[in-house]
């Protein structure tokens, strides 16, 4: 018996030693670099790029009164800890994936893949500079350096420009295969135009700091390869899938639910759309959706209705409710708590979020209604190009007549918005409403354009003319806070924006604090003293009031 037991011991032990091995280091649950797929990598880069645009745009929109900014003080508006997500998406998602993709794509002559990746990187780097100033580049994305220092903003901008130039070369070359991209479905011409327009945007943005910008812009104009028509618009197009994954426009997803809620629109912007010209902007029914057609009379829903306008608000400045017909959002830097108004406050409309067209229904939002969230991110529209060219023609005398460009820009904006709207399922609602109300779109647009041109002609100085152009650009930019935030710091326009509710909200945010994730984890990056530090192209005086 003992022998049997001894043999049993030996057998069990031998079995265990051989079956339990220590080579268990490869994660059996994941993909590794050896079996990745360039198409899949590019898909993720594009999706993360869309999300990058959405989050930077959101910041810009709030600071430029296109949406409510819900802090009392500018310093608290974008606190360091709030920036971690954006930084993570930039570096740990997009930039590292681009760095991984380019050699793989080029090894297989997937030129367009490489070009799209480069263009995305160029845009991300330039926007990081626009928002933060100096950011890490040369020491970044290196797994053996946990403390990458920052590079001067001009260097990063130059690198962004180089990426865009390289992307243009990629798009010109013949690819072994075309990716299923989310922007242009592999159309090389459109990609080239997008890249060249991005180049224009960068040159234009730094025009105050670079006296060669005008010549370079003129060269681009002469080349005539900028985004010109609506079909060339550089937009990310969301789907309508509710889950697995939620592919809807994030602004729609955050608001079109059984309980509503989500963003507060900015009272100041809505006032401009509704009453700024003396008659409603033709785009207002596409931009804004009213859940009610009358203003609330209960402080339970809107606590400021019985409050006095703050004494530092000008007499003609909008306060609390911008109109009498149910548009209500928030004043600038209002940090109030949230009353039960989720199904009452003004919601995102059909453009660009893919929500409801405002046909005076006055009904609460709900999940799935309108265009189901199949909205767009208006990253670069044909109208934006003309606005930029109008501003640069006016200020740095690039080719073109600013007045002509302004008119063209406004008309293109109207067309972009309407074309998007009528391409959606809401078209029927638009048609029937316009028929009932005898609204003729072209007349509305002409009336508006006439008014704008009259304002332009009435503007006596270049600065006043710039104010007209900028205000129209701002009104066309709904959904794109990146350009409006840049414009506001570049020009200080539109002028006379709604002030903060607080008398002394601190200096305007001229660049964001570095995220907490950077300063707390990276000994080579020190936090800025305050948020009033301008970025390199912002040559406006510190005294410029916003």
């Amino acid at each position, binding site marked *: 018996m*003992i022998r049997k037991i001894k043999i049993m*011991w030996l057998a069990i*032990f031998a079995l265990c030693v051989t079956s*339990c091995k220590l080579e*268990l*280091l*490869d994660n059996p*649950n*994941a*993909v*590794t670099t050896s079996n*990745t*797929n360039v198409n*899949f*990598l590019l*898909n*993720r880069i594009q*999706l*993360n790029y869309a999300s990058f645009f959405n989050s930077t745009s959101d910041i810009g929109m709030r600071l430029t009164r296109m949406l409510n900014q819900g802090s*009392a003080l500018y*310093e608290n508006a974008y*606190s360091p*800890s*709030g920036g*971690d997500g954006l*930084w*993570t998406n930039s*570096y*740990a*998602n997009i930039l*590292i994936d681009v760095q991984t993709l380019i050699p793989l794509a080029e090894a297989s002559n997937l030129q367009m893949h490489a070009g799209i990746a480069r263009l995305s990187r160029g845009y991300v780097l330039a926007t990081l500079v626009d928002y933060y100033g100096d950011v*890490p580049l040369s020491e970044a994305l290196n797994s053996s*350096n946990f403390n990458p220092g920052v590079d001067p903003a001009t260097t990063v901008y130059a690198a962004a420009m180089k990426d865009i130039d390289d992307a243009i070369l990629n798009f010109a070359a013949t690819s072994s295969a075309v990716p*299923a991209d*989310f922007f242009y479905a592999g159309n090389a011409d459109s990609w080239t135009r997008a890249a060249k327009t991005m180049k224009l945007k960068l040159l234009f943005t730094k025009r105050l700091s670079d006296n060669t910008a005008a010549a370079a812009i003129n060269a681009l104009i002469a080349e005539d390869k900028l985004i010109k028509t609506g079909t060339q618009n550089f937009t990310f*197009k969301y789907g*309508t*899938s509710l889950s*697995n*994954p939620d592919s809807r426009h994030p602004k729609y997803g955050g608001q079109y639910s*059984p*309980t509503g*809620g989500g963003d507060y629109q900015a009272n100041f912007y809505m006032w401009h759309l509704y009453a700024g010209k003396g008659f409603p902007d033709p785009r207002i029914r596409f931009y804004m959706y009213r*859940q009610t057609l009358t203003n609330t009379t209960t*402080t339970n829903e809107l*606590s400021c209705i019985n409050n006095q306008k703050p004494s530092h608000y000008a007499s003609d400045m909008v306060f609390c409710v911008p109109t009498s017909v149910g548009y209500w959002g928030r004043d600038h830097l209002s*940090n109030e*708590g949230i009353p*039960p108004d989720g199904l*009452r406050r003004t919601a995102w409309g059909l453009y660009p979020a893919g929500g409801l067209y405002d046909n005076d229904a006055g009904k*609460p939002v709900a999940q799935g209604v309108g265009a189901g969230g199949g909205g767009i991110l208006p990253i670069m529209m044909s109208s934006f190009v003309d606005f930029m060219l109008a501003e640069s023609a006016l200020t740095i005398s690039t080719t073109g007549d600013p007045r002509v460009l302004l008119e063209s820009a406004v008309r293109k904006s109207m067309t972009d918005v309407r074309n998007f709207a009528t391409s959606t399922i809401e078209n029927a609602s638009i048609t029937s409403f316009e028929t009932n109300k005898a609204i003729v779109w072209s007349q509305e647009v002409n009336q508006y354009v006439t008014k704008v041109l009259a304002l332009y002609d009435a503007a006596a100085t270049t600065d006043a003319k710039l104010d007209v152009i900028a205000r129209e650009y701002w009104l066309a930019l709904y959904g794109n806070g990146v350009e409006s935030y840049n414009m506001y710091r570049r020009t200080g326009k539109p002028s006379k924006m709604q002030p903060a509710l*607080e*008398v002394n909200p601190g200096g305007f945010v001229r660049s964001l604090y570095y*995220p*907490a*994730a950077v300063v707390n*984890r990276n*000994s*080579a*990056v020190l936090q800025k003293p305050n948020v009033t530090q301008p970025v390199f192209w912002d040559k406006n005086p510190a005294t410029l009031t916003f």
Partner: protein
Amino acid sequence: MVCSCWLSVYAQQKKITGKITTADGGSELPGVSVIAKGTSIGTNSGSDGTYSISVPSGTTSLIYSFVGSVTQEIVIGNQSVIDVKLADDTKSLQEVVVTAQGIAREKRALGYAVANIDKKLIEDRPQADIGRTLQGKIPGVNITSTSGVSGTGTNIIIRGYSSITGSNQPLFVVDGVPFNSNTNSRGGFTGGGQSASSRFLDLDPNGIENISVLKGLAATVLYGDQGRNGVILVTTKNGTQKNRPTEVSVSQSIFTNQVHLPDYTSIYAGGFQQAPGYFFSNWGPNFNEVPAGSQLHPFTYLTNASLKAAFPELVGTVYDFRPYSDNVEKFFRKGIISNSSLNISGGGEKVSYNASVGYNNEQGYIPGNNLKKLNIGMGINAQLSKKVSLITSFNFANTDQVSPPLSAGQGNNTLGGFPSILANVMYTPLSVDLWGMPFESPVDNRSVYFRSGNDIPNPRWMLKYYSNTGKVNRLFNSTSLRAELAKDLTLLYRVGLDTYTENQEYKYNKGGVDFVNGWYSTNDISNTIWDNSLILSYNKVVSDKLSFSGKVGGNLRNDRFRSVTTTSDNQLAFGLMRHSNFISTVATNYEEEQTRMGVYGEITADFGNYLFLNAAGRNDWTSTVEKDNRKIFYPSGSVSFVPTSAFPGLESEVINFLKIRAGLGTSAGFPGPYNTRNILNQVARGFVDKSGTVSSTHSVSDVLGNPNLKPELLTEYELGLESKLLNNKIGVDFTVYRRDTRDLITATPLDPSTGYTSTTINVGKLRNEGIELGLTINPITGERFNWEMNLNYTRNVALVKELGGGLEEVQVAGFGGGLGNYAIPGKPFNIIKGTAIRRDANGNPIIGSNGYLLSDASPAILGDPNPAFTSALINTFRYRGITLTFMIDYRHGGAMYSTTAGALLGRGLTKDLDFDRAQSLIFPGVMQDGQPNTTQITASNVYFDNYYFFGDEGRMYDASTIRLREASISYSIPKKILTKMPFKGISLSFSGNNIWYKALHFEKHLNFDTDNLGLGVGNGMGFEFLTGPSSRRMGGTLKLSF
């Protein structure tokens, strides 16, 4: 152990008879071998324990032996009747404790602290969770409930947190082999993780014979890295080596389980700014200011037209606007806990057995929360041959938990969009007729509640249509084969198998607020541990004054974890919970395997029974790091010196016993698997465009693999003193320790500029220093009346010494970058940071022009959640058969962030706020220009808009708490009376758990219990997120043995 083989009987010269009983209980022991020394003559005791043997003349003594008992040799002399009491092998000498690898040793020989918990402190308690049963009973061990909801997890920390991001939970060793004690939560604290159980819940407290807790590294070194957080050694009744009398014992307990609730105002109504309204808040007017008939039914204001249309009979009707004071109280129930157990033991000459069955049926205090546990076990001790014996125990556990969803809430619906039953219940406004109004739409079963936007899920609806279930089937076996190879040389082989499947289901019907379209997730987990040990031990007695013992062993452990998570959303038919009833389904499976091998050795030397030396070491190889870092050796040493034995003159009536001990231990912590190599994330369905085309994505994982990852190193010194004073009336057991962890394996957050957001690296140093004191005082010792006091005191100071790598802080737990626990060099571990009030240089709050507080831009330090000390006092009085015990514990200090306080005070609910709310208030502080603030604001502004719902600072409290943890009275019917009955023992007891408490610095009417862990089982502490108040459990137990 001696085997009794005997042949025929020779000359019959003397007959000896007697009865053999157990030393502790006096039960008859059948099957005991009785042998005449020096002969092969012997017999066995009969079923009643009696024996009769005829021995040849010249036989000097008889040898009594029995499996699991200490063999006794008794000189015959001229006796003819010899009654023998056989003592348990592990209990033969007083103060014998079980140490690492199941080795029973005299406590006086140990150079380190070991706590021994007798079953009397564990059994017949109202808590089915062994962790909670031990709360406060062991110095140096800090046990916290995640919530009072039945079946939720329990956090156990021994001697402080010694790893920043690694596990700090102790190793459970049951019957000598490792027992998985994970808390398999499906999401984090905002993702529904709060309802998960800790898997030591599968142990039946009534089936436990004994628990030893090895606290320091000097004690745990033989377990290698697995023992670094301390070891809880559990011996089940089925796995014990003790002798087993023939006995059947049955016990039945019934307890009630009742929630502790705040005291609500009865004066003020729901509303805001003194105006009535259907808000979250209760800042409405005094009820007597609201004219009767002035308020319409809340459904009148529903914004959702179709929902409103479903209630034509209520819309527009006059609402009975009055205090519904029992809203919250009625939401909870008095749960009944029933616990039955049956234990049968017995045996014969070569084999003894134990079988046990336990069934626990616990109703939680929330309807729909139940915990059912069935434990079946069987243990066998067998003498296979003269030299070989076998012990095996099988334990089967079936745990069935049902719970409504639990996730963190901040007093404003749930966080992170995961539903939680208690997120909104506790602050239901007084004027809301929770029990009188419908909670679902008769049309489509949608939830309906009092807010116009219908953005609060009705809690009654959630009770009916949301539930989580967790079903566990677990089999646990430990088998040891022991062979005596030669005199004093023993070989032991032990194999353990711990395997379980846990099937979790999360069933949320459509029509709610958080998962509007319905959500169903199943998570099927299986976990298996195989553990093999081979130990060779040798004892050598050199002389009366010197003896040695030594052992060498090898251990091999393999852990496999698998899970398959299937999540569906967009429910088709209401009520049906099948994946096929949902439009979209995503499944992921995950596997993890790790192996560790260790060899270890230990030498102990005993010099004259007053000086004991112990040296041990273990070398480990593990599979979770790359080859170069795989091997690690950890030594330990300890010494115990007993001056009262070394210098006999020292021993006196004042000092009966004195022992000084010192220990030095090292250990290591290995990382979890798969941290050394890079991976890419894959999403099969990354995007669906308008036309329905699905795109898949790959991206470089944000987690950087670190091929250089190595184990973290722990070093601990401990010094102790044990003494018995004043005729043994006072016993002292005192320990001081310092534990340093270096090269901490930290899931270090990285600046994303590196391309990654975290990696696992070895950085920094963490130090825990502490004091443990156990005092036993017997003020009165008498035959009839006895009073015993036990005092436990624990103080641990955890300090982050350095982080390294350019890191200024690491968030241990919490909300990314914001409120949470942090490791910051020079600060106590787990310090709480969050949004603070903006203050000027003199510390005055800065007030905005609207009279409101302003906040800081970056999170600031708000408090240290580590208690200054915890202590417990257990008093036991015995009078004849009556025993009265009560246990009071006290926690001093430690900051706590309380959402219950924030939500109830911020929303105007408790009696603490029954002041005149109509008066306006001015925040003391300065305006931005430095002038004193003069702006008047209302009470609701102060409490809601500012203090409690503004930033995080207002919700911070000092969590000092005094508590009547346990009280019981029990009565055992004296044996004299029982002799006429078929019973060996009858006892009846009444006991309660968490009977009374007071959190000293919280507002009185909150009745807040600080025994809560909002962040769930893990390394975070000091947070409470409305995941369930504690409960009071009271009841009785009847116990019979025959």
